[in-house]
């Protein structure tokens, strides 16, 4: 995940504005994307959830020395807030308007298939395949065993593949 190595932060406390700004800039884009794909086509809501998740994570963090612990806390908060939000299906408008048509269609297909998954399935896949978290971190976020995290992620991957196949065969 980009910017996961925050060794340049060093010793930090939540009062350090520079540290906070660095963390926000390093993680905001990934958290925003995660929330958006969890809640659907509501960028304003995703913006609000992302911002409030950061505020809550930063306000309650004892220190920012353990970057991984902060990230786990941040993602857990963002997922909890997203779970309560109303889910809006994605419209066909996409952020990838500049992409070649074939690549754009392929991404749209995966996006459509993602929408058909349950909330937890979406979250697991996005944490693993988009944010590249370890199963240990995923298990800490969902408060389940690593084994279960792995099994459920694999199942979610099987399910999304089936959905993509359905869409390709015209059944989606």
């Amino acid at each position: 995940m980009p910017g996961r190595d925050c060794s340049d932060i060093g010793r930090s406390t939540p009062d350090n504005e520079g540290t906070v700004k660095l963390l926000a800039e390093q993680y905001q884009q990934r958290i925003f994307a995660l929330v958006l794909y969890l809640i659907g086509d509501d960028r304003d809501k995703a913006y609000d959830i992302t911002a409030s998740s950061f505020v809550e994570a930063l306000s309650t963090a004892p220190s920012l020395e353990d970057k991984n612990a902060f990230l786990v806390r941040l993602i857990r908060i963002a997922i909890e807030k997203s779970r309560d939000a109303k889910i809006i299906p994605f419209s066909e408008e996409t952020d990838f308007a500049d992409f070649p048509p074939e690549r754009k269609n392929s991404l749209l297909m995966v996006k459509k298939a993602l929408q058909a998954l349950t909330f937890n399935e979406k979250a697991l896949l996005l944490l693993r395949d988009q944010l590249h978290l370890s199963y240990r971190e995923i298990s800490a976020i969902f408060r389940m065993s690593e084994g279960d995290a792995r099994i459920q992620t694999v199942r979610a991957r099987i399910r999304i593949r089936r959905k993509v196949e359905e869409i390709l065969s015209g059944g989606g």
Partner: protein
Amino acid sequence: MEDNLNMTCSDIRKKLKAFLDDLLAEDEYQAFVAHVDHCKECNDYVRKIGSISNQLWELGDIKAPSDLASTILFRLKQAEQEIRKPKFVISKKLGIGILVVALTVPLIFLGVYHLKSRKRPQDVGETPTIEVHVGRKPAISRREAESLLGELKGIAARLGVSKKEKAVESDTGREEEAIEEDAGRTTPVRKEALLLVPKPLHWHFLYAKERNLKREEAQRKAGLTNAVNSPGIITDYQTESLLVFTAKGEKIENVLEKIILMSSGSSFLRDYTPMVSVDPNQEHRVSVYFEKETASVRHWHATCVPSQEQRLLDVIREESGRINYESEELIVFSISKDAIKKLKARILAMRIDFSEFDYAESKEGRLQSGPVEISVYISNR
């Protein structure tokens, strides 16, 4: 990260397939990701592969709004200032009490009377509720009273708490309203949502790909049912399309082994269990759907938080004609064709994750008259 886990560009090419299949050990996975994050050439190379995992990765490239970081800092400062403000603390309960009394005093002077009979506070559902009793001879019209009620509900929704309001009528006509804040209500729901309740095993067994069964396909279904009809395995429910049995985990593994040997692999068996922890020494229940590609089993999956389950079951009982089988995770019922649409609409209105595993428009489905049997597998999210 230890040096011996740093990957080179050559390592990336060797381990690409394993990465895409998520088969790397964790330390290798993290080393792979770390290299790809920093090496543009390898990043482009990996991302060229059009796997679903890569496309999910690519979906994450959307741009966040440019002012997000500054909004975060601003809100954080606001939050800190709130903490540092000199505190005249009005507790949430007191604040809500003052607000509601301030709104209802005008109602008293407008001559809204509560019913003489006391009404028990209603149980709080998942949405805030406020009761206002309107007497037989209101001094304001019913329309005005309903409008005021709507305003109160809006305030309650904005406050984001669930309330119980008890109206007490005293002899002098004064009213006392006690408001209880059910502040812990949402937290347990969230905890339930995060805790995954284990559900018994749920399989789909594709035993026939063609309408005219080949011999081996007929044997496949017989093979599974024979494997289940053995000592130590109890059949709970069985029809042509559904088999539910209970057995200790080790017996279930024996059944699986037989299926694998019988079908030269497990490709015929799909496991939809949301959470697997098969303890060989504990009993587990397994529901198996027999499927033919050309014919459907009316079968739905409903995924919901535990607090929604009872409502879902109640809705199914209300709309269906007869319950044929019910267990912790599975309900099988008969329902008239006309009622199916209404039932689906009610389930969807509950905002439950809902999937249909029927193959639509199967000939059998179209020809069938009379009640339809549907099974719903309920799992927790």
